[in-house]
């Protein structure tokens, strides 16, 4: 935690516009924010001062989000830092394998780009178990629901889905 009592969030993303965007949303919500453009820089900063939460992109030069996450897990203190993955690669081959590795252990949640600022802040507050407004709670519940629904569809048998669709069409 930062000296002023505010929670400190580290935003790691290789795109400057994304960093600016997420930082603005977090500052607006009353967080302290530091930014890093890749995993290497992030690690150096974490070694100096621990953030309360890391917002992480997956595909980046130098050190990717997945690599950084694995290094965090190796370290006793760092492995407790909650992580929010913000990625555009959640559902394609580039990010999928990385993501599978990540969601298996450690605290965290993933959000798919593009994110709405209110959903992003709500997800972070919910992980940090901060007091959230009913609206924010709903938004974060919504994200969780939506993610689990997307995962279920991804993993569902295509044949079963087709049958289901036919059934529903017959009903209406």
């Amino acid at each position: 935690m930062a000296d002023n009592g505010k929670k400190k969030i580290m935003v790691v993303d290789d795109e400057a516009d994304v960093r600016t965007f997420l930082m603005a949303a977090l500052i607006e919500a009353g967080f302290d924010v530091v930014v890093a453009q890749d995993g290497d820089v992030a690690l150096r900063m974490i070694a100096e001062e621990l953030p309360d939460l890391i917002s992480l992109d997956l595909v980046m030069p130098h050190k990717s989000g997945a690599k950084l996450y694995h290094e965090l897990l190796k370290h006793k203190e760092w492995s407790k830092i909650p992580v929010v993955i913000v990625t555009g690669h959640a559902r394609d081959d580039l990010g999928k394998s990385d993501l599978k590795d990540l969601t298996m252990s450690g605290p965290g949640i993933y959000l798919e780009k593009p994110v709405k600022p209110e959903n992003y802040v709500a997800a972070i507050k919910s992980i940090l178990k901060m007091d959230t407004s009913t609206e924010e709670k709903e938004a974060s519940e919504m994200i969780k629901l939506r993610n689990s629904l997307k995962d279920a569809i991804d993993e569902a048998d295509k044949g079963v889905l087709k049958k289901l669709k036919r059934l529903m069409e017959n009903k209406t």
Partner: protein
Amino acid sequence: MSESSTNPEQWDDGYEILFNSVPCYVTVIDRDFRIVRANDAFHDSFGYAPNIHCYEVYKHRDTKCRGCPAEKTFGDSKIHRSNQVGVGKKGQKIYYTVRTSALKDVRRNLTHVIEISNDVTPLRKLEERVRQAERLGAVGQTVAGLAHSIKNILMGLEGGKYIVSLGLEKNNKEMINQGWEMLERNFDKTTSLVKDFLSFSKGRLPRLEIVDPGKLVMEIVDLYKEVASRSSIELAPEIDDGVRSAPLDPSGIHTCLTNLVSNALDACLASDKKGTKVTIRVKEKKGVLIFQVEDNGSGIDYEIKKKIFTTFFTTKGGGGTGLGLLTTRKIIEEHGGTISVVSQSGKGARFEMHFPRKRLLELYRQSTRNSKGQPANSK
């Protein structure tokens, strides 16, 4: 062997049974290319055919086929093979591979040729299905990649929109400007994405011309020397003496070299080192024309190396569309060449394009043959 056994028109019953039982098409043709004998398998697929020209029966043609293997065997007594497409008796397409061998009489005169063919139609159909599945797979991958790029742009637009509205709320002009710039940048990204995407999807055969590879390299050096020197990066051409002219698509190779050199310059900029350098080399090795683009910049780590030739993969944050290296590889492969990369994180990278001369020459002959009779630009 008795005289009668070498004369295909006078075989005895034993040969006849054997001839009719083999599981492939067997025909015997004379020097007029008339079928004097054909086995049952042949009759079943192509119809009855005594004393008719082989090309009439196999292909319903009036003249000899191009590259006829039987003709070659009549010429040199050797075995020849070729892949052909014929027409069956029901009008169906039959893909077959044919081998021809010499049939000589007792005085060693080459009087006939035996043609033995295997029907490979099921195999061809399977291959076609596999190719189609691959094409569909590639389309799926491309669409997924495109969706990802759009998601990234949307993220930028979302951010710009948010910051502009924050700025308006707080009456903060600096914030409004910042958000507006983000919006502009991401609109521009849409334009360059569409442009790159279109140029990638344009499937075309390389337009081969005989060009001097060294000259192509010098054009690229001229193009980039100013940008490089502004960032104090040395840009050095190395053209080996032994490099001869080659049939290449100059605009295609220009695109490849541009992509590789601009990547190399980016890698130099991303590195903290002093004395960064990009070398563009062209040389010749064992019948292979080689272009190399080497830099001592930031290098590529292993994880990224696995992905660099993948559609829409980019590590350049906002700067890249992720299509450069993919387009480069596509152009090189259209030339019958290959691309490879040697790199270590932090130690620079070397991209190599290999063009086997034999393959270039084949493609060149093909393209000059195809361009006869039809204008180069016709679709």
